[in-house]
């Protein structure tokens, strides 16, 4: 069985997210741009988001032109189950960050976060949002293939 319109849609969204944010986080974390000297603005974070929106519009309109399939109740059920998985990933990430930031101790992540700039913490939060979105796409693809 080939890929359905929805599956192609999801693969495109997953690919775009991984490509754009993969490149973005690689730039941010590997080049150590997150120092106090480098002032990160909201525009820095907005840029990859705008790029994703533009790419999504182009690819989705291309896919929609070739398919007449629509959403249905099974698609809605899969979407709702997948959002729940994404929510868990986001919750774990946010709680991990909160505990590490408020934990009175030393060593490991505590030392890293204690000396981190607000930009670094903001980017960690953004990373958890992106991971939640990626989880959502992957579980949707899995449920579409294997059933929900």
């Amino acid at each position, binding site marked *: *069985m080939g890929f*359905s*319109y*929805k599956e192609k849609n999801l693969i495109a969204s997953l690919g775009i997210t991984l490509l754009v944010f993969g490149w973005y986080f690689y730039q941010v974390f590997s080049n150590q741009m997150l120092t106090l000297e480098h002032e990160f603005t909201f525009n820095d974070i907005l840029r990859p988001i705008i790029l994703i929106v533009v790419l999504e519009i182009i690819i989705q309109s291309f896919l929609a032109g070739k398919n007449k399939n629509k959403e*249905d*109740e099974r*698609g809605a059920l899969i979407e709702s189950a997948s959002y729940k998985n994404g929510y868990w990933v986001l919750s774990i990430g946010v709680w991990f960050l909160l505990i590490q930031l408020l934990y009175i101790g030393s060593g490991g992540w505590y030392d890293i976060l204690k000396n981190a700039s607000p930009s670094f913490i903001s980017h960690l939060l953004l990373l958890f949002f992106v991971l939640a979105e990626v989880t959502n796409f992957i579980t949707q693809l899995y449920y*579409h293939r294997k*059933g929900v």
Partner: protein
Amino acid sequence: MSKKLTNNIRRLRFESEEMSQQNLADKVGVTRQTIFEIEKNKYSPSLEVAFKISNEFKVPLEEIFIYD
């Protein structure tokens, strides 16, 4: 032993001049993948979709879906 919901949609399609999954999907307002999953007993449709399938084949609901 736990009961399972099965159905005769595949047979009914063939008895209806070999209606395709896409054709049935279009008539009941779902995707072809949903019909495929229902036929394989991997997805239980809503009551609304079940009634639409029943109306399409002009067969009572209990003759299409079997809970046993």
